[in-house]
C-alpha cells in the first residue's frame, strides 16, 4: 500500500496515489449495471453512473484515504432527461433544417460558460477526500473568456491553440478549491508550445504514413498474400483504410500530447498549505495503453471496456502524487450547497469536455 512517507534526506514528504480497482471486479459491476439500464429503458443509467463513479473514486487512494463521489442519482436523472430532450431537438432540427445550425450555435456559445461552470462545480462539490469536499468557483465572464473567446481565437488562428489550452487548464485548476484552500497552476507558455510543436510533427508524419499504408494495402490486394482467403480490397477501400489508420494515429498522438500537457498543468500546481502536485505519466506509455485498449475493445465487441478503464486508471493514478510537509489534518470543508446535474449532463450529451 502506498502511503505517506517523509524523505530520509529531509526533503518534503511524498504522498503517493494508487488505484485499487480490479478488471474482473469492475467487469461484473459494469455488465450488471448495463443490463439493468437496458431492462429499465435507460432510467437506471443515473444509478449506474453513480456506482461507476463511486467505484473509480473509491478505489483511488491518496495517502491511505480514498476519494469519494457523492452525487445523487435522481439529480443526474433529471439532468439527463433535460439533456436528452435538448439533444434530440438539436439533432432533428439540424438535420431537417440545416440553416437552424447558426441559431443553435449562438445558443450553445451563450450557454457554454454556464455549462462549463455548472458541470465542473457539480463534479467538484460531489468529490471529497478525508471528509472534506472540493469546490469550484469560476464566474460566467471568466468561463466565457476561456471557453468561447479563446476557443474561437484558436479556431481562427491555429498557432494560438497551445495558449488556449493553457487558458482552459488555468481556468479549470485555479478555480478549484479543497477545504477552502485554492489550487494554483502557473507555467511558461513556451513549454506548452514545445509539446504542441512535437505533436504537430507527429501528425504530419502520421498523415504521410496513413496515405502510404492505405496505398500499399490497396496496391497489394492482400488476398493474394493470404493464399486463397479472399479479403476484398480495391481502389474504393483507399479512403476507409486511410481513415482507420489516421483515426488510430490521431488517437495515439492525442493521448500522447494530452498526457504531456496534463503533466505540465498538474505538475506545476500548488495547493495552499504547503502542497505541490506531482504528475509524471509517460506520454508513450499512456498512448500505448489507449491504443491497445481500443484495439482489444473492438476485438472483444466491447467486453474489454471495463478492463481497459481499470488498466488506464491503474497506470495514471500511480504517476500522480502530492508532495509537501503541510498538515493533512488541517483541512476542513466549507459550507456548500448542493448542485443540480443539468449542466453536467448537457455537457455530457454534447460531448463537451471540460477539464484536463
Amino acid at each position, binding site marked *: 500500500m502506498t502511503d505517506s512517507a517523509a524523505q530520509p534526506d529531509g526533503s518534503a514528504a511524498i504522498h503517493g496515489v494508487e488505484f485499487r480497482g480490479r478488471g474482473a471486479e469492475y467487469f461484473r459491476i459494469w455488465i450488471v449495471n448495463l443490463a439493468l*439500464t437496458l431492462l429499465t429503458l435507460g432510467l437506471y443509467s443515473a444509478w449506474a453512473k453513480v456506482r461507476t463513479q*463511486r467505484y473509480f473514486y473509491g478505489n483511488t487512494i491518496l495517502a491511505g484515504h480514498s476519494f469519494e463521489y457523492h452525487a445523487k442519482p435522481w439529480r443526474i436523472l433529471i439532468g439527463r432527461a433535460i439533456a436528452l430532450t435538448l439533444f434530440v431537438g438539436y439533432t432533428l432540427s439540424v438535420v431537417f433544417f440545416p440553416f437552424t445550425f447558426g441559431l443553435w450555435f449562438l445558443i450553445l456559445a451563450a450557454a457554454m460558460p454556464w455549462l462549463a461552470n455548472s458541470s465542473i462545480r457539480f463534479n467538484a462539490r460531489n468529490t471529497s477526500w478525508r471528509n472534506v469536499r472540493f469546490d469550484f468557483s469560476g464566474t460566467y465572464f471568466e468561463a466565457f473568456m476561456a471557453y468561447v473567446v479563446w476557443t474561437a481565437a484558436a479556431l481562427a488562428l491555429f498557432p494560438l491553440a497551445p495558449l488556449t489550452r493553457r487558458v482552459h487548464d488555468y481556468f479549470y485548476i485555479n478555480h478549484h478549491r479543497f477545504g477552502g484552500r485554492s489550487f494554483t497552476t502557473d507555467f511558461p507558455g513556451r513549454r506548452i508550445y514545445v509539446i504542441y510543436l512535437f505533436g504537430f510533427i507527429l501528425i504530419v508524419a502520421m498523415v504521410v504514413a496513413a496515405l502510404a499504408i492505405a496505398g500499399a494495402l490497396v496496391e497489394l490486394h492482400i488476398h493474394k498474400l493470404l493464399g486463397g482467403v479472399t479479403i476484398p480490397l480495391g481502389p*474504393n477501400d483507399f479512403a476507409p483504410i486511410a481513415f482507420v489508420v489516421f483515426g488510430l494515429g490521431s488517437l495515439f498522438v492525442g493521448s500522447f500530447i494530452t498526457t504531456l500537457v496534463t503533466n505540465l498543468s498538474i505538475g506545476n500546481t500548488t495547493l495552499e498549505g504547503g502542497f505541490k502536485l506531482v504528475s509524471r505519466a509517460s506520454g508513450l506509455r499512456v498512448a500505448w495503453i489507449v491504443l491497445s485498449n481500443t484495439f482489444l475493445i473492438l476485438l472483444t465487441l466491447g467486453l474489454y471496456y471495463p478492463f481497459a478503464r481499470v488498466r488506464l486508471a491503474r497506470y495514471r493514478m500511480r504517476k500522480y502524487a502530492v508532495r509537501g510537509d503541510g498538515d493533512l489534518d488541517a483541512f476542513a470543508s466549507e459550507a456548500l450547497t448542493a448542485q443540480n446535474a443539468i449542466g453536467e449532463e448537457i455537457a455530457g450529451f454534447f460531448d463537451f469536455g471540460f477539464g484536463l
Partner: protein
Amino acid sequence: MTAPLEGRYFHPNAARHVPARASATADRMLRIEDESGTVLAQAAARSVKSTARLARLTRRFDLPDGARFETEDNDGADALLRTLRKLRHGRLTDRLERAWPVALLSAAITLAAGYYFFVQAMPMAAEWLARKTVPLVAHTMSEQTLRALDRFALKDTTLKPAEQARAQALFTRTAAHAGGGAGAYRLVFRGGGPIGPNAFALPDGTVVMTDELWKEVKNDAEVEGVFAHEMSHVDHAHQLQRVYEASLFPATLVIFTGDMSQVSQMTAILPSLIVESAYSRGFEQQADDDGAATLRAMGEHPSHMAEFLERLDKKVCGKTGCPPSWLGDHPDTAARAARLRREDKGPIPASEDCLKPWRSGISLHCLAFN
C-alpha cells in the same frame, strides 16, 4: 447486540480523524467511541446516512453534524445496519454485481437487448417517425438539400429540351405504375459533376437524374427501372428513416453507455457506421424489389435494371467493375444484379426479403442508384 465495528471517526467537516469503533444502542442510536471507550458521537439511526455497499470500498456513515465514521469491514457494517434496522436497498445490487452467473446473464441480456434495439426497434421507430413527418418538413428538407448540392456538387443540365421531354415522358409513365401514383413525384435534371452517372430521391418526391446517367441509357426499361427504384425510396420515406436512425443511434448509445468520451468514442463510431450501412442496404434491396415489381407491371423485364447496374459499375470502376468492400451503403452490384434477374420470373418470396446486413459486400463509391 453485535460486536463493535472498528474504523475511523472524522470530526465534523474536517480531515482530522481518530481510530474509533461504532455500535448500536438499545434505542436504535449509532454510537461512536474512541479506543478508550469515550463516546465521541451518538446519533439516531434514522438521521445517519450510510453509503450502499459497493465492491471493496470503504463504508461510510455520515452523521447529521458533518462528522463521519468509516470502516473497511463491509460485513460488519451490514450487520450493524441490520441491528439499526437500516439495511434496505443497495445490498441487492451489490450481490448482483458480485455473482459471475449474474454477469453472464447480464451479458446475454445486453446482447439480446442490443440486437433488439438496433436491429428491430430502431428501424421500426424510424419508419414510424418517417411516416408521421409532416410534408412541410420533408419539403423544406428536400429544398435545402438540393440547394446545398447545387452549390457544392451539381451543375446545370446540358440535356436538350427534346431529351428532357423524352425522359419526362418515361418518368410519367413509370410514376403511373409506382406506389405513390402520378402526382407524387417530380423529375429534375442536373449535371452530375463529381457525382457522375447517378440518380437519387429526396423526401418530398423530387427525383434528381444526372446527365451522365441519361447518356448511359440504352433502352427505355433501363431508365424506367432507375425511376421506379427512386420512387420506391420516396414511397417508403427511406431518406427520412435514415435521418431518424442517424439521430436516434448516438442518442441511444449515450443513454446506455453513459458517456461519449475517450475510449467509448472510438467504439461508438465504428458500430454506428456498420449498423447504418446495414440499414441502408436493406433499403436498397427494398427499392430494387419494388422497382422490379413496377417494371413487371409495365410489361418490362427487371433484368434490364441488372444490365444497367453492371454497365454503370464498369463505367465508374473500370473493366472489372467495382469490387465488393467492407464499408459502404450499397449492396454488392453482382448480388443485386443476380437478384434482379431472378425477379424476371416473378416476385422473390417475402422470406428472403428480410434485412440481411452481413451477407453481401458493399461498395462505398459505386453510387449507382442512390
